[in-house]
Protein backbone atom coordinates (compact mmCIF):
# COMPACT_ATOMS: atom_id res chain seq x y z
CA UNK A 1 0.00 0.00 0.00
CA UNK A 2 1.36 3.37 -0.87
CA UNK A 3 -1.40 5.93 -0.67
CA UNK A 4 -1.44 8.79 1.75
CA UNK A 5 -4.57 7.27 3.13
CA UNK A 6 -2.62 4.45 4.64
CA UNK A 7 0.03 6.57 6.29
CA UNK A 8 -1.83 6.55 9.55
CA UNK A 9 -1.49 2.80 9.65
CA UNK A 10 2.22 3.07 9.07
CA UNK A 11 2.66 6.14 11.23
CA UNK A 12 4.55 7.68 8.33
CA UNK A 13 5.19 11.36 7.80
CA UNK A 14 3.98 11.66 4.32
CA UNK A 15 2.79 9.83 1.29
CA UNK A 16 5.03 8.81 0.68
CA UNK A 17 9.35 31.65 -24.92
CA UNK A 18 8.31 28.31 -26.64
CA UNK A 19 9.89 25.30 -25.26
CA UNK A 20 11.87 22.60 -26.92
CA UNK A 21 8.72 20.52 -26.86
CA UNK A 22 6.65 22.98 -28.83
CA UNK A 23 9.47 23.63 -31.23
CA UNK A 24 9.81 19.94 -31.95
CA UNK A 25 6.17 19.80 -32.98
CA UNK A 26 6.67 22.53 -35.51
CA UNK A 27 10.03 21.72 -37.03
CA UNK A 28 11.98 18.68 -35.95
CA UNK A 29 15.72 19.25 -36.05
CA UNK A 30 18.21 16.96 -37.68
CA UNK A 31 19.12 14.39 -35.08
CA UNK A 32 22.77 14.64 -34.06
CA UNK A 33 22.49 11.47 -32.01
CA UNK A 34 19.25 10.06 -33.16
CA UNK A 35 17.72 6.92 -31.86
CA UNK A 36 17.19 4.42 -34.57
CA UNK A 37 13.44 4.28 -34.12
CA UNK A 38 10.64 6.31 -32.61
CA UNK A 39 9.06 3.27 -31.05
CA UNK A 40 10.81 2.30 -27.80
CA UNK A 41 8.69 -0.81 -27.49
CA UNK A 42 10.75 -2.36 -30.24
CA UNK A 43 14.12 -1.31 -28.91
CA UNK A 44 16.28 -4.11 -27.62
CA UNK A 45 17.35 -3.25 -24.12
CA UNK A 46 20.69 -4.51 -22.89
CA UNK A 47 19.46 -4.67 -19.31
CA UNK A 48 16.59 -6.27 -17.48
CA UNK A 49 13.47 -4.15 -17.96
CA UNK A 50 12.21 -4.69 -14.47
CA UNK A 51 15.12 -3.10 -12.71
CA UNK A 52 15.02 0.67 -12.61
CA UNK A 53 18.49 0.99 -11.12
CA UNK A 54 20.05 -0.93 -13.94
CA UNK A 55 18.15 1.09 -16.50
CA UNK A 56 19.29 4.35 -14.93
CA UNK A 57 22.90 3.16 -14.73
CA UNK A 58 22.80 2.09 -18.37
CA UNK A 59 21.24 5.40 -19.40
CA UNK A 60 23.93 7.28 -17.51
CA UNK A 61 26.45 5.42 -19.63
CA UNK A 62 24.73 6.61 -22.79
CA UNK A 63 22.41 3.68 -23.46
CA UNK A 64 19.53 5.50 -25.11
CA UNK A 65 17.41 2.37 -25.34
CA UNK A 66 17.59 2.05 -21.55
CA UNK A 67 16.48 5.66 -21.16
CA UNK A 68 13.69 5.10 -23.65
CA UNK A 69 12.48 2.21 -21.54
CA UNK A 70 12.30 4.55 -18.56
CA UNK A 71 10.33 7.03 -20.65
CA UNK A 72 7.98 4.33 -21.84
CA UNK A 73 7.46 3.22 -18.26
CA UNK A 74 6.57 6.67 -16.91
CA UNK A 75 5.17 8.61 -19.88
CA UNK A 76 1.52 8.21 -18.83
CA UNK A 77 2.11 9.20 -15.22
CA UNK A 78 4.24 12.20 -16.12
CA UNK A 79 1.67 13.40 -18.65
CA UNK A 80 -1.06 13.00 -16.05
CA UNK A 81 1.03 15.08 -13.64
CA UNK A 82 1.68 17.88 -16.09
CA UNK A 83 -1.98 17.84 -17.20
CA UNK A 84 -3.15 17.95 -13.60
CA UNK A 85 -1.01 20.99 -12.85
CA UNK A 86 -1.45 22.99 -16.06
CA UNK A 87 -4.94 21.83 -17.14
CA UNK A 88 -3.80 22.74 -20.64
CA UNK A 89 -2.86 20.03 -23.11
CA UNK A 90 -0.26 22.00 -25.03
CA UNK A 91 1.52 23.13 -21.87
CA UNK A 92 1.28 19.65 -20.41
CA UNK A 93 2.85 18.12 -23.49
CA UNK A 94 5.66 20.67 -23.58
CA UNK A 95 6.33 20.22 -19.88
CA UNK A 96 6.44 16.44 -20.26
CA UNK A 97 8.83 16.57 -23.21
CA UNK A 98 11.16 19.01 -21.51
CA UNK A 99 11.06 17.02 -18.28
CA UNK A 100 12.27 13.90 -20.06
CA UNK A 101 14.88 15.80 -22.03
CA UNK A 102 16.19 17.55 -18.92
CA UNK A 103 16.19 14.38 -16.88
CA UNK A 104 18.45 12.76 -19.45
CA UNK A 105 20.73 15.78 -19.64
CA UNK A 106 21.05 15.86 -15.86
CA UNK A 107 21.23 12.14 -15.22
CA UNK A 108 24.79 12.54 -13.97
CA UNK A 109 23.37 14.67 -11.14
CA UNK A 110 20.95 11.95 -10.06
CA UNK A 111 22.58 10.50 -6.98
CA UNK A 112 20.28 7.53 -6.67
CA UNK A 113 19.26 8.29 -3.08
CA UNK A 114 15.61 8.38 -4.16
CA UNK A 115 13.67 6.57 -6.85
CA UNK A 116 14.31 7.79 -10.36
CA UNK A 117 10.58 8.37 -10.73
CA UNK A 118 10.48 10.68 -7.69
CA UNK A 119 13.37 12.66 -9.12
CA UNK A 120 11.59 12.83 -12.48
CA UNK A 121 8.39 14.03 -10.81
CA UNK A 122 10.26 16.98 -9.28
CA UNK A 123 11.60 17.99 -12.69
CA UNK A 124 8.21 17.57 -14.38
CA UNK A 125 6.36 19.47 -11.64
CA UNK A 126 8.76 22.39 -11.99
CA UNK A 127 8.34 22.39 -15.76
CA UNK A 128 4.55 22.34 -15.41
CA UNK A 129 4.49 25.05 -12.74
CA UNK A 130 6.71 27.27 -14.84
CA UNK A 131 4.20 27.07 -17.68
CA UNK A 132 1.24 27.58 -15.38
CA UNK A 133 2.79 30.75 -13.98
CA UNK A 134 3.69 31.96 -17.44
CA UNK A 135 0.25 31.37 -18.88
CA UNK A 136 -1.63 33.12 -16.11
CA UNK A 137 0.79 35.59 -14.56
CA UNK A 138 -1.89 38.05 -13.51
CA UNK A 139 -4.52 35.61 -12.37
CA UNK A 140 -2.82 34.08 -9.40
CA UNK A 141 0.44 33.43 -7.71
CA UNK A 142 0.96 29.99 -6.25
CA UNK A 143 2.95 31.33 -3.33
CA UNK A 144 0.37 33.92 -2.26
CA UNK A 145 -2.47 33.12 0.13
CA UNK A 146 -5.64 31.82 -1.50
CA UNK A 147 -8.94 33.42 -0.45
CA UNK A 148 -10.60 31.11 2.05
CA UNK A 149 -7.40 29.17 2.59
CA UNK A 150 -7.54 29.47 6.36
CA UNK A 151 -11.29 29.50 6.86
CA UNK A 152 -12.55 26.95 9.29
CA UNK A 153 -15.58 25.21 7.91
CA UNK A 154 -17.27 22.03 8.97
CA UNK A 155 -18.53 20.03 5.99
CA UNK A 156 -22.31 20.22 5.90
CA UNK A 157 -23.48 18.16 2.97
CA UNK A 158 -23.09 14.70 4.49
CA UNK A 159 -24.65 11.79 2.67
CA UNK A 160 -23.92 8.10 2.43
CA UNK A 161 -21.76 7.09 -0.55
CA UNK A 162 -22.60 3.44 -0.29
CA UNK A 163 -20.00 0.69 -0.05
CA UNK A 164 -17.86 1.54 -3.05
CA UNK A 165 -18.33 4.25 -5.68
CA UNK A 166 -15.73 2.44 -7.80
CA UNK A 167 -18.20 -0.39 -8.34
CA UNK A 168 -20.88 1.99 -9.58
CA UNK A 169 -18.84 3.62 -12.31
CA UNK A 170 -16.74 2.20 -15.13
CA UNK A 171 -13.09 3.13 -15.37
CA UNK A 172 -13.52 5.74 -18.06
CA UNK A 173 -16.56 7.25 -16.36
CA UNK A 174 -14.68 7.46 -13.08
CA UNK A 175 -11.75 9.04 -14.87
CA UNK A 176 -14.07 11.70 -16.26
CA UNK A 177 -15.53 12.40 -12.84
CA UNK A 178 -12.12 12.72 -11.17
CA UNK A 179 -10.77 14.84 -13.99
CA UNK A 180 -13.81 17.10 -13.83
CA UNK A 181 -13.72 17.72 -10.11
CA UNK A 182 -9.98 18.34 -9.92
CA UNK A 183 -10.30 20.76 -12.81
CA UNK A 184 -12.62 22.90 -10.67
CA UNK A 185 -10.06 23.32 -7.89
CA UNK A 186 -8.08 26.53 -7.61
CA UNK A 187 -4.56 25.95 -9.01
CA UNK A 188 -2.98 26.54 -5.61
CA UNK A 189 -5.05 23.81 -4.02
CA UNK A 190 -4.88 21.51 -7.02
CA UNK A 191 -1.09 21.60 -7.29
CA UNK A 192 -0.57 20.75 -3.63
CA UNK A 193 -3.12 17.94 -3.79
CA UNK A 194 -1.56 16.43 -6.91
CA UNK A 195 1.99 16.53 -5.55
CA UNK A 196 1.05 15.18 -2.13
CA UNK A 197 -1.76 12.71 -2.78
CA UNK A 198 -1.26 11.59 -6.35
CA UNK A 199 2.53 11.76 -6.64
CA UNK A 200 3.13 11.13 -2.94
CA UNK A 201 5.81 13.75 -2.46
CA UNK A 202 6.52 14.74 1.13
CA UNK A 203 5.12 17.92 2.62
CA UNK A 204 8.61 19.42 2.63
CA UNK A 205 9.28 18.53 -1.01
CA UNK A 206 5.92 19.95 -2.02
CA UNK A 207 6.60 23.16 -0.11
CA UNK A 208 9.93 23.55 -1.86
CA UNK A 209 8.56 22.95 -5.34
CA UNK A 210 5.52 25.22 -4.96
CA UNK A 211 7.42 27.89 -3.03
CA UNK A 212 5.21 28.00 0.06
CA UNK A 213 5.71 27.10 3.71
CA UNK A 214 5.11 23.65 5.18
CA UNK A 215 2.07 24.89 7.19
CA UNK A 216 0.66 26.37 3.98
CA UNK A 217 1.04 23.01 2.23
CA UNK A 218 -0.82 21.30 5.07
CA UNK A 219 -3.55 23.91 5.05
CA UNK A 220 -4.03 23.71 1.28
CA UNK A 221 -4.00 19.94 1.30
CA UNK A 222 -6.78 19.88 3.87
CA UNK A 223 -8.85 22.40 1.89
CA UNK A 224 -8.24 20.51 -1.34
CA UNK A 225 -9.29 17.19 0.17
CA UNK A 226 -12.43 18.69 1.69
CA UNK A 227 -13.37 20.47 -1.52
CA UNK A 228 -12.87 17.33 -3.60
CA UNK A 229 -14.96 15.30 -1.15
CA UNK A 230 -17.71 17.85 -1.44
CA UNK A 231 -17.59 17.80 -5.23
CA UNK A 232 -17.53 14.01 -5.38
CA UNK A 233 -20.50 13.97 -3.03
CA UNK A 234 -22.66 15.14 -5.92
CA UNK A 235 -21.80 11.97 -7.85
CA UNK A 236 -21.58 9.40 -5.09
CA UNK A 237 -24.32 10.25 -2.60
CA UNK A 238 -26.99 7.64 -2.10
CA UNK A 239 -29.06 9.04 0.74
CA UNK A 240 -28.97 11.20 3.82
CA UNK A 241 -26.97 9.99 6.79
CA UNK A 242 -29.05 9.86 9.92
Amino acid at each position, binding site marked *: MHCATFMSEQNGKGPAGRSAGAASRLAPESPPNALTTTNPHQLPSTVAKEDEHLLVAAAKGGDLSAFNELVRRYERKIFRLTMNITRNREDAEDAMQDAFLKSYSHLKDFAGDSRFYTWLVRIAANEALMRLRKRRPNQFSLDEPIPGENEETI*PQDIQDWGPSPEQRYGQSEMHEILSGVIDELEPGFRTVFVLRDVEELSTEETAKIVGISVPAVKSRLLRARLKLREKLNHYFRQGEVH
Partner: protein
Amino acid sequence: MNCESVTREMSNYIDGDMDAVLRLELEVHLQCCRHCTVVLNQVKMTVELFCDAEPVDLPNDVRSRLYEALKNKLPAKP
Protein backbone atom coordinates in the same frame (compact mmCIF):
# COMPACT_ATOMS: atom_id res chain seq x y z
CA MET B 1 -12.32 17.89 20.76
CA ASN B 2 -15.25 19.24 18.76
CA CYS B 3 -16.26 18.85 15.12
CA GLU B 4 -14.39 21.99 14.11
CA SER B 5 -11.14 20.74 15.61
CA VAL B 6 -11.59 17.34 14.01
CA THR B 7 -12.07 18.94 10.61
CA ARG B 8 -8.97 21.06 11.15
CA GLU B 9 -6.87 18.02 12.10
CA MET B 10 -8.36 15.60 9.60
CA SER B 11 -5.51 15.73 7.09
CA ASN B 12 -2.86 15.30 9.76
CA TYR B 13 -4.78 12.34 11.13
CA ILE B 14 -5.02 10.68 7.72
CA ASP B 15 -1.30 11.24 7.13
CA GLY B 16 -0.33 9.96 10.57
CA ASP B 17 1.26 13.32 11.28
CA MET B 18 -0.19 13.86 14.72
CA ASP B 19 0.95 13.36 18.30
CA ALA B 20 -0.53 10.49 20.26
CA VAL B 21 -2.59 12.55 22.71
CA LEU B 22 -4.31 14.58 20.01
CA ARG B 23 -4.89 11.46 17.99
CA LEU B 24 -6.59 9.77 20.92
CA GLU B 25 -8.80 12.80 21.53
CA LEU B 26 -9.83 12.78 17.88
CA GLU B 27 -10.63 9.07 17.96
CA VAL B 28 -12.73 9.52 21.10
CA HIS B 29 -14.72 12.17 19.27
CA LEU B 30 -15.14 9.89 16.24
CA GLN B 31 -16.65 7.17 18.40
CA CYS B 32 -19.59 9.38 19.26
CA CYS B 33 -19.87 11.57 16.13
CA ARG B 34 -21.35 9.96 13.05
CA HIS B 35 -20.99 13.19 11.11
CA CYS B 36 -17.21 13.43 11.49
CA THR B 37 -16.78 9.69 10.92
CA VAL B 38 -18.59 9.87 7.59
CA VAL B 39 -16.62 12.93 6.49
CA LEU B 40 -13.32 11.33 7.48
CA ASN B 41 -14.12 8.12 5.61
CA GLN B 42 -15.20 10.04 2.54
CA VAL B 43 -12.06 12.17 2.56
CA LYS B 44 -9.98 8.99 2.84
CA MET B 45 -11.93 7.49 -0.05
CA THR B 46 -11.40 10.65 -2.09
CA VAL B 47 -7.64 10.41 -1.63
CA GLU B 48 -7.70 6.70 -2.46
CA LEU B 49 -9.67 7.24 -5.65
CA PHE B 50 -7.16 9.76 -6.96
CA CYS B 51 -4.17 7.80 -5.70
CA ASP B 52 -5.32 4.52 -7.22
CA ALA B 53 -6.58 5.89 -10.52
CA GLU B 54 -4.59 4.51 -13.43
CA PRO B 55 -3.33 7.19 -15.79
CA VAL B 56 -4.88 6.97 -19.22
CA ASP B 57 -2.81 6.17 -22.29
CA LEU B 58 -1.04 9.02 -23.99
CA PRO B 59 -2.91 10.23 -27.07
CA ASN B 60 -1.14 8.87 -30.16
CA ASP B 61 -0.14 12.28 -31.47
CA VAL B 62 1.32 13.29 -28.10
CA ARG B 63 3.31 10.06 -27.90
CA SER B 64 4.62 10.45 -31.46
CA ARG B 65 5.84 13.96 -30.77
CA LEU B 66 7.45 12.89 -27.50
CA TYR B 67 9.55 10.17 -29.12
CA GLU B 68 10.32 12.40 -32.07
CA ALA B 69 11.65 15.02 -29.65
CA LEU B 70 13.71 12.43 -27.79
CA LYS B 71 15.06 11.07 -31.05
CA ASN B 72 16.05 14.51 -32.28
CA LYS B 73 17.28 16.17 -29.13
CA LEU B 74 18.90 13.71 -26.81
CA PRO B 75 22.68 14.00 -26.65
CA ALA B 76 24.71 10.82 -26.99
CA LYS B 77 25.76 11.00 -23.34
CA PRO B 78 23.93 12.56 -20.44
